């Protein structure tokens, strides 16, 4: 059942032992490049989701005067590292390193995220990111199951190499109660 649950995520979650996981602390991923540049269509669709009427996302004149162009809501940052879910060449591996750390837990839920933003994310920018494993916790039980917390830091850069944002993320990799 646990294997079946992992397959359904489509994230290529790697399972293994906590000792194998700890060996990955300090590992930094190769850069991943966003599938598409920052664009107004995705900004509008995300802003519609949040029902966010900030003119920075909707009004070209205001946004150009204030930020230099239309900008992306900061909540979209992580979207730029999620691979498109189909390509003619085949599916693309999910680049988030917390899914590649070998741990017993076949599923996951995000626990916390601390993000610093250093510059506005403008239309036309092409972002890339690298992901580093900072820590693996002891085994811990929570309301949803038993597992480990994986702390990673993602650094986002633009095509000039400037750091746009850093995201320190804690992901819970766990076995759900009914599977444990």
């Amino acid at each position: 059942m646990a294997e079946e649950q992992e397959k359904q995520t489509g994230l290529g979650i790697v399972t293994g032992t906590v000792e194998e996981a700890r060996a990955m602390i300090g590992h930094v991923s190769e850069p991943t490049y966003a599938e598409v540049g920052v664009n107004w269509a995705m900004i509008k669709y995300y802003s519609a989701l949040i029902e966010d009427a900030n003119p920075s996302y909707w009004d070209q004149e205001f946004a150009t005067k204030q930020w230099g162009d239309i900008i992306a809501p900061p909540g979209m940052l992580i979207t730029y590292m999620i691979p498109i879910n189909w390509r003619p060449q085949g599916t693309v591996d999910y680049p988030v390193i917390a899914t590649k750390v070998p741990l017993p837990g076949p599923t996951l839920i995000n626990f916390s995220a601390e993000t610093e933003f250093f510059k506005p994310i403008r239309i036309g920018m092409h972002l890339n990111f690298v992901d580093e494993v900072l820590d693996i916790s002891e085994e811990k039980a929570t309301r949803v199951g038993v597992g480990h917390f994986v702390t990673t830091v993602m650094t986002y850069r633009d095509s000039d190499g400037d750091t746009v944002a850093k995201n320190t993320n804690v992901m819970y990799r766990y076995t759900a109660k009914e599977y444990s």
Partner: protein
Amino acid sequence: MLTEVEGCVNHQLYWDDIAEGDDVTRVEMAVPYEKVIHNAAATWDFFPGHHNPEYARSQGQKTIFISTLFFQGFADRVVTDWAGPLTFITRRKIMMRGSVYAGDTMYGEGKVTRTYVDAGGRHLVDVEVVIGNQDGPQCPVSITAAIPTKAEAG
């Protein structure tokens, strides 16, 4: 007037006008199943807990639930709806203590905890935002925003 686009946020608070203890205006939003599916499509996050109720239940969840990226955008919106569109979010920390499910009504509200100037001369405001649903608070969010002074805004 900041914008001529009808319906857009068209007011701005300035750093000089903000004090510790100020309330940040509450925002509410219905979260029907359509919204959770829109969440997956708009963020490209098709983790099955966000679109497949059977999978969500196998994870120990009630049904499909909104993603971190939705919480983050909603928390940012609570601050920028209140302060205005000249606001730049410089830092945001979110703790996913609970979930918001399809069928819920969510809210966000907050309070100013600190106003200060950093070493780089930026005028900053710290806000503690709480995002919850009809069952109470679910996610605390700490946000730092750079908000211009009246003099900077001209």
